[in-house]
């Protein structure tokens, strides 16, 4: 028998669990300012996350999905995307949203049950958070198609979880990106868990990245807790997409350190020992160690950053808590651009029922 084709999936890892370089670092490591900015964003994200969980626990925020373990990946996405590119998130991309310009207040409003949380004034073309799993992948290729139709040098990054790669939306979308040569980078955040379902029974494939090959796209695996391998892969994928060379699938391997959401209890399905092992690979601590070893960071700087992040988050929380709910008539007002006659009476009833609700 003759072998017709040969495929491969590359993987990269530059820093070991303790932040020690395993090999020559990529060019991205020379940009110390960008690396420090990445670290600051990761710490801000983690500070925000802890506060959001605390707000939920005290009845001041709705169900919230912790971003613990995703901070490195989201930060690299936010840094690699150009302002004119489009970000198509799933629902655990807080680190990326902050860099794209969605405010902490908006994020709290969204999880706090207020539609204005997706009004994003600073990143008007980014898609809102997508709750139905993997559905955003189809939007990403739609945005990519619009870019291709208009011949623009822009690109899209679309996030999806390991569970999401089992859905047709993901497979249909990577297939279209391959068939139509679309500038869409699919960032598969493989955090090992789809609520309680482990990665091992999500697919029989050895890697998720190899699914790219079936779609005619390159697939690449990175250590999702190694900032340098994530940012290098994203920079390269976006450079390729901007140059009209098509899309890509990157599988960023990490571990969901928190519960699925505040409504979940992960102790029901995973061991404390596994979680402890995963914490040893934490990407924030890893980058901190690296920066420390490189002489770019010290305990005083850490202390100052922690205080600054805490203050930033507290300020956002104050503003969030002080934001009054929209009048109930808002549920009618944003349904259509032109309010149909048939909805007028319902709007009037709402306005009358909640006096002053206009």
């Amino acid at each position, binding site marked *: 028998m003759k072998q017709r084709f040969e495929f491969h999936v590359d993987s990269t890892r530059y820093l070991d669990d303790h932040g020690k370089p395993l090999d020559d670092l990529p060019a991205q490591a020379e940009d110390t300012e960008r690396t420090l900015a990445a670290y600051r964003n990761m710490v801000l994200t983690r500070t925000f996350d802890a506060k959001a969980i605390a707000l939920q626990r005290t009845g001041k925020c709705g169900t919230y999905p912790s971003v613990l373990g995703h901070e490195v990946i989201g930060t690299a996405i936010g840094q690699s995307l150009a302002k004119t590119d*489009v970000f*198509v998130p799933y629902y655990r991309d807080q680190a990326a949203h902050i860099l794209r310009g969605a405010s902490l207040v908006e994020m709290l409003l969204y999880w706090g049950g207020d*539609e*204005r949380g*997706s*009004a*994003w004034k600073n990143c*008007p*073309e980014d*898609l*809102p958070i*997508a709750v*139905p799993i993997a*559905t955003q*992948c*189809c*939007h*990403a*290729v*739609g*945005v*990519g*198609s*619009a*870019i*291709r*139709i208009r011949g623009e040098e822009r690109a899209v990054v679309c996030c999806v979880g390991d569970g999401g790669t089992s859905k*047709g*939306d993901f497979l*249909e*979308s990577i*297939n*279209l990106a391959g*068939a139509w040569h679309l500038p869409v980078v699919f960032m598969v955040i493989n955090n090992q868990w789809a609520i309680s379902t482990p990665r091992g029974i999500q697919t029989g494939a050895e890697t998720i990245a190899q699914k790219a090959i079936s779609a005619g796209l390159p697939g690449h695996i990175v250590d999702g807790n190694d900032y340098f391998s994530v940012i290098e892969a994203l920079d390269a994928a976006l450079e390729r997409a901007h140059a009209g060379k098509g899309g890509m699938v990157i599988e960023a391997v990490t571990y969901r350190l928190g519960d699925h959401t505040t409504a979940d209890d992960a102790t029901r399905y995973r061991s404390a020992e596994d979680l402890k092992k995963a914490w040893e690979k934490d990407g924030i601590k890893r980058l901190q160690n690296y920066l420390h070893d490189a002489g770019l960071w010290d305990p005083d700087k850490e202390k100052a950053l922690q205080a600054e992040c805490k203050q930033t988050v507290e300020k956002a929380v104050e503003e969030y808590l002080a934001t009054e709910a929209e009048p109930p008539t808002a*549920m009618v007002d*944003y*349904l*259509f*651009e*032109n309010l*149909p*006659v*048939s*909805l007028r009476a319902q709007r009037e009833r709402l306005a009358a029922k909640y006096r002053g609700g206009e």
Partner: protein
Amino acid sequence: MSSAEVRDVTLVEAVNMALAWEMAHDENVVLLGEDIATNGGVFRATVGLKELFGFKRVMDTPLAENLIAGTAVGMATQGLKPVAEFQFMGFIYAGMEQIVSHAARMRNRTRGRLHCPIVYRAPFGGGIHAPEHHSESTEALFAHIPGLRVVIPSSPQRAYGLLLAAIRDPDPVVFLEPKRIYRAVTQSVENNGEALPLDTCFTLREGDDVTLITWGACVMETLQAADKLAEQGVSAEVIDVASVSPLDRETLLCSVAKTGRAVIIHEACRNGGVGAEIAASIAEGAFLDLQAPVVRVTGYDTIMPYYRNEMAYLPTVGDIVEAVEQVIAL
């Protein structure tokens, strides 16, 4: 293309005319679907458009309806006005999550930051001896969804004018084309780019004794029934609902206030059909004007039979006349 051009066209040709007009006048209008470019669509609704506007604007997609529905959402957020074709309504269900959970919600979810000026076109309804899954009328599934418009033309002129309106509307429209009358009649249509209003019923025939309320292919049988009733001395008003959601209740209620009787005719199953919403609206808004109960003439609450029995499923002229005789007798 001359703005004064008048052509005798079928309903499906009117769809093609409207698409061509709007693509020529708005570069943001793009088409996507299965077999729509080189083949011109399985019903030929998009024939010749690839030649006029190129593959970049007339796109043959991979065979994945969910992808078609969701790709249109992404395109729309970038300011394009996609017109997505589903080959048959029986295959639209794979796309429902995208239509219901994203296209219909994007404006509301982002507080107007992004919106979805999409038209989802699908041929629907029975009567063409098609295979299983090719003949259903499930417009009520979409009429139930807030944030969607559901529009159904019933003549070449209304297909032209309503499709132009649907493409220009800044929000998503499910545009269902009654394929039984795709080529049933020709009508003279002026290719002038003039749209017809959405959210509006069309009174096709005025009458005093009973209001016949219908849409889609059943408009044909309903008009024939009105002719027969006229011979019996019964004056029937015929209303083409056209926009089954949101409903133009005002026109319906005014007519029932005048005639005092209403018969609703639709091809879809009765249970939970759009006819039920109309009947309830009449009960709420015109009860004291009614001289007889509202009666529905509909398909059965069964699976659409395969084609040997499909005509037994569809409402007939006789069914409509009989229903009117029943309400007139009261």
